[in-house]
């Protein structure tokens, strides 16, 4: 490991590959169990509520609210230095599951728990497009 440090790129596996394929198409997938009507994230081969195998993929609305947030002022590695400071947030999707993400386009002073957000996508490599979030208001065209 000499020279440039790389970002911590996600390596997909058979269970999660459909999620990352959908991100490349700017779609946010979670899972839905048709047996017990439960949504879940991260992807698993079973429903964590009723243990039914093979929950369905479901395209989430991509909207939710901030459950908690922090501004990282010392980057996790030099690869993240150019985006520092950056906001790490826990997003509660409208469907129910929580996911961690970066919150973009949001001034520190306007950050607050409960704020509405929506997903955006950013290509980090040919294989990986990351789901990130912005304030929902910023979506108004």
């Amino acid at each position, binding site marked *: 490991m000499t020279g440039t440090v790389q970002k911590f790129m996600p390596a997909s596996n058979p269970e999660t590959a459909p999620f990352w394929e959908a991100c490349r198409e700017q779609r946010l997938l979670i899972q839905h169990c048709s047996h017990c009507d439960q949504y879940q994230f991260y992807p698993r081969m079973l429903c964590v509520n009723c243990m039914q195998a093979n929950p369905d993929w479901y395209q989430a609305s991509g909207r939710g609210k901030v459950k908690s947030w922090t501004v990282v002022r010392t980057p996790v590695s030099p690869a993240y230095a150019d985006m520092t400071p950056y906001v790490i947030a826990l997003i509660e999707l409208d469907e129910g599951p*929580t996911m961690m993400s970066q919150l973009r386009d949001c001034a520190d002073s306007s950050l607050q728990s409960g704020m509405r957000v929506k997903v955006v996508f950013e290509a980090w490599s040919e294989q990986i497009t990351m789901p990130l979030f912005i304030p929902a208001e910023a979506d108004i065209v």
Partner: protein
Amino acid sequence: MATLRGKVAIVGAADTRVGIVPEFNAIGLCADAALKAMADAGIDKSQIDGLVTCNSMTEPHFYAAEVLAEYLQIFPSYCVSTSAGGGTTYTSLLQAAMAIEQGLCNTVLLVLGDCLRSGLSREQALRMQSSTGHREFEIPHGPTVPAYYALIARAHMDRYGTTAEQLAAVAVEARQHAARNPAAQKRDPITIADVLNSRMIADPLHLLDCSLVSDGGAAVILTSADRAADFPKPPVYILGAGEGHGHEHISAARSLTTSAAVESGQRAFKMAGLRAADIDVAGIYDCFTPVVLIELEDLGFCAKGEAGAFVAAGETSLQGSLPMNTHGGLLSHCHPGNPGAMFALTEMVTQLREAAGERQVLNAETALVHAQGGIMSSHATLILGRENQ
């Protein structure tokens, strides 16, 4: 139901020098701690037939316990390496106690050591930052270890009105305790303003809300209660033990403000037949200031949302209702990673032996230690006492 209550005792306990200890690598710290604990127990290695340890971050081995047994030339009948992050110490102790109670071994050396301050390479430091968190769904976004804990701090503030000053009070109190402990890494007094004016690491956590990065090791010797009187120092008995496991990744937590310390605490108190009010002195895992508040609440020392005011009112000082982390804790004594919680354990042994000098809690008969690993993920609680009835 059979219970471990009072069946196992700590008969030896010792720390290495802590802080910046460049003369030892991780296994050297373990060996130094082991020698000192055996001396404290008045035994030599021929009497050790159980060895419990945890992998180090600076010198990871596939078979960490076997490497240490070989290094010390100990040939145990029970030999295990445990990994539960910061909670490893008490989880390991519980396993050692069960092995003794089941007759698998008589005398266990529980020893942990690591040198995060002096021995970590840049590559290892980077890997350590990314060792916690979900590899696909958390780590790529770039959270640091303080950032994960900042998320729970913010949630506690939002839900209960906890303030940055109350978080800072945890760090100030830790430093006041450390000032009485010559072994502590940081002993210069700090104020609330010092904490709030220290560099912001991950809002709302400042540098002084974060624990130290240290070298250090510690060890305890455990044996069955019926053999405990044969050792020179007053035994400290395990009265209660419990674990709780809520999640691994913070984004999958059932709650950001209530942890599985609720379950681990209830299980330990039930085994001990005691209540929070019966505890004279406590060791509460303090890797970051908000962790202390959630643990104090979840263990029942105060109601949910009230720990900030509890600490700010001085209740965890030497004169308070619950003297806490009298050695200085991870915030001011030392934090070498996985061994971190060992020092609260050895401090509670020192307190229950009434050997803590100017930081002695008067009439300390019952102690509680609690630790967590991951991001409020794996919790373990022990209740210790001078008497085993």
